[in-house]
């Protein structure tokens, strides 16, 4: 599967999101065959289901933690440029962010920014930068450095693949004094705090960038608790402890340098080989997003496993409101009632991830239980809706209306098969024929943008609900991800308003209304919420996850 350096292999990076779910490697198939078929409750988010709690013990110093990563090497180690999950995960250790977000409580903590102020319409953010912080090359970190990073991200010449879109409609920064900086935006940007907590908006050393030019991508320099040492392509990436680190965020449990001597990210491209290496304790930590493998690991009870439930838009079908027959709202509503997401979760994913029921997953800010109950699995109701709309059962059990067969086309990229195949018989049950087309990701994006689908497979993880703008605002129909092609000014206005609303409660209410409109118009079929896991040897302690499921190794230590 499309593995990355870290736990969440199917996450925020758009190119990966498009690929969607799980593609079992040949090795994966071998191991999967050994898995029991009984269901296992999806593990809860957050902290480890720790084997032998060592939480209260005094952390031990030293040791090199070996983290296996499957799949390809990163394209670049510069988080401001790369959209690779592995890079984001690694950058957590090398770069400091202005603020950090606690995945448990969805609250923000000061990091490089000691405090911040937001103006009324969320277009102006003023940060007080912590004093006495230096990059590992000795450059002082001040307001200028923060401005430099933001300017660099927004500069088209940087060709940022993710950070620029996270930063949003940035117009520039003003250095108010040596440690105060004000960032300005042309539109409300309430999601910025969340974005800032991500390593992609971490602060880079301006002098290192200027000296190294393009080489910075292979020699990143930040102010984080680990320092980049070397990258041997397709072999390993080595980080060593920053001995001078003394500016830890209050979100962590200690201050001063990290406990571990260093981190070694070891390439183990094949998942089966990686699992063997984990078994042989050649690696200490491995990110696993293959649900069947994960279940085996959970059942072995040999490891500490941190799970992370995806936030954002679950793996779903977007229903095309322009192409027949899904241009008929009755058909869309019938499809929603006819599909049982639990079936997909059980058949394809051994019951490990949660079934989705709303346009935001249940762990997301803005999830609304009322929205989640709008379309219970009810094939009889689906049949009724179709009968009432004039779609009557014809030859071979497929419904027809005015000579048109009720046949829908699903388009997804490789990895979407497990999300589509179990649905085919469910739809056929109520008289809807489903054709599954699996295309290469580029061809699929082209087909989806052109609106050739009735159902388009898409998941879009994001720790902020503003992801719904990408998926449902009509401005994203022609060159974005609004593949339900629904054009409604009310929905558009609400999406824009929610993006600029700084008050959390008011935002949640706006997103409730947004989701209600989405589901009333039956624009998508939520299927699988998704989760990723960080599997660790039992002697690895103190690892926490960020709001994207990437590990923080600052408090981590190894018990000898």
């Amino acid at each position, binding site marked *: 599967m499309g593995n990355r350096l870290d736990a969440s292999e199917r996450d925020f990076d758009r*190119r990966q999101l498009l690929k969607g779910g799980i593609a079992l490697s040949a*090795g994966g198939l071998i191991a999967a065959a050994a898995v029991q078929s009984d269901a296992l409750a999806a593990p809860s988010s957050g902290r480890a289901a720790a084997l032998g709690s060592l939480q209260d013990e005094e952390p031990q110093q030293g040791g090199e933690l070996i983290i296996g990563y499957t799949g390809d*090497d990163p394209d670049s180690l510069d988080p401001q440029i790369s959209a690779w999950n592995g890079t984001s995960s690694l950058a957590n250790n090398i770069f400091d962010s202005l603020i950090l977000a606690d995945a448990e409580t969805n609250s923000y903590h000061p990091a490089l920014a000691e405090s911040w102020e937001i103006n009324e319409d969320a277009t102006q953010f003023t940060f007080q930068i912590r004093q006495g912080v230096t990059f590992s090359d000795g450059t002082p970190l001040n307001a200028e450095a923060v401005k430099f990073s933001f300017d660099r991200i927004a500069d088209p010449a940087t060709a940022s693949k993710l950070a620029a879109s996270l930063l949003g409609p940035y117009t520039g920064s003003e250095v108010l004094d040596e440690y105060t900086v004000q960032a300005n935006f042309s539109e409300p940007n309430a999601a910025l705090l969340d974005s800032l907590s991500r390593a992609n908006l971490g602060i880079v050393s301006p002098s290192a960038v200027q000296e190294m030019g393009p080489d910075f991508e292979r020699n990143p320099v930040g102010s984080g608790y680990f320092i980049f040492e070397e990258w041997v392509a397709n072999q390993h990436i080595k980080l060593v402890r920053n001995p001078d680190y003394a500016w830890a965020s209050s979100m962590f449990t200690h201050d001063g340098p990290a406990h571990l001597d260093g981190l070694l990210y070891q390439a183990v491209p094949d998942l089966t*080989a990686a699992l063997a290496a984990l078994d042989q304790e050649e690696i200490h930590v491995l990110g696993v997003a293959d649900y069947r493998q994960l279940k085996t690991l959970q059942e072995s009870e040999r490891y500490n496993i941190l799970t992370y439930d995806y936030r954002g838009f679950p793996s779903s079908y977007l229903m095309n409101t322009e192409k027949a027959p899904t241009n008929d709202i009755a058909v869309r509503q019938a499809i929603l009632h006819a599909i049982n997401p639990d079936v997909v979760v059980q058949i394809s994913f051994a019951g490990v991830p949660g079934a989705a029921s709303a346009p935001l997953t249940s762990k997301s800010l803005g999830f609304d239980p009322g929205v989640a109950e709008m379309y219970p699995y009810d094939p009889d109701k689906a049949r009724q809706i179709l009968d009432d709309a004039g779609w009557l059962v014809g030859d071979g059990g497929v419904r027809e209306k005015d000579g048109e067969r009720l046949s829908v086309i699903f388009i997804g990229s490789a990895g979407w098969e497990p999300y589509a195949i179990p649905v085919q018989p469910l739809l056929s049950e109520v008289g809807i024929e489903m054709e599954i087309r699996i295309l290469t990701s580029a061809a699929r994006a082209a087909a989806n943008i052109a609106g050739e689908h009735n159902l388009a497979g898409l998941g879009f993880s994001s720790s902020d609900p503003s992801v719904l703008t990408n998926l449902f605002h009509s401005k994203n129909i022609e060159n974005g991800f609004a593949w339900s092609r629904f054009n409604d000014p009310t929905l558009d206005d609400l999406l824009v308003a929610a993006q600029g609303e700084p008050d959390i409660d008011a935002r949640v209410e706006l997103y409730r209304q947004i989701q209600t409109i989405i589901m009333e118009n039956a624009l998508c079929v939520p299927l699988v919420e998704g989760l990723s896991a960080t599997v660790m040897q039992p002697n690895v302690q103190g690892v926490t996850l960020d709001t994207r499921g990437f590990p923080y190794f600052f408090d981590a230590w190894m018990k000898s």
Partner: protein
Amino acid sequence: MGAYLARRLLRTVFVLVGVSVLVFSMTYLVPGDPVLAMLGEQVTSGESIENVRRDLGLDRSPLEQYVRFLGDAVQGDLGRSWRSKQPVTEIIMEQLPATLQLTMAGLGFAVVFGVTIGMIAGVHRNSWVDQLSMFIALIGVSMPAFWLGLLLILVFSVHLGWVPIVGYGGLNRLILPALTLGLQASAIIARIVRASILEELRRDYVTTARAKGLSESRVLTFHALRNALIPVVTVVGLQFGSLLGGAVVIETVFARQGIGRVAVTAITGRDFPLIQGIVLFAAVVYVLVNLGVDIIYARLNPQISVY
């Protein structure tokens, strides 16, 4: 010999030009817009797509692009990877030692194991030794490398704990990958050696040697084997190419660095310049190795020169 060599070289040039055309047209044959693929599906505005297209020279005519591609390639400039922006030649050179080490070790294993088995089988024709050897060879040819690799990991690393699973460097990390890589080739070599030995043993000079009263082992090693190995040279040349290809799978399974890994990453990332560079490089190596084999062959067997 001189004329043969000249003809052979000329043919090589034609093959290489053909390869370059094929490699170049790959960009056009693959469905999907390469520029969109490169932008990583971050659907940007039409204008920036056009900018990228212009920057990459993809807006020019195919012929113009090809001439530029070939001109640069001849000078060792294969362009820059779209993904990592490093020069393709640099990436290949960085990863080449690991792949060469693996390929040579695999080939060495294949030759030693293949020749030995083939010889034993040939000498003991139709005995149980022969049948067992050929049965093993059949299994060897039939086993897919990724499966064999995982099996070896399971046995030697997980159960016996003799060798580490991941990493590059050190002899103990080379054994399993080389074994996996070499087994299939060794099976093929074994069959060729057996057939060839059988043929040689029937020849007059062997009868003469035996009549002179030489011991059977002398007849075998100093007379029959030398001649029997001539076709093996050809096979080894051919196998070298498939071993390079086999590295793609082996390097992934055994977490080694190398050209194969780069190729996989390039293909999944639709990194066209890198894919083109690797394919071109592999083709050149293959063609040159076979050119070398033909030259050696001509020396080993002077009759070749007349053709």
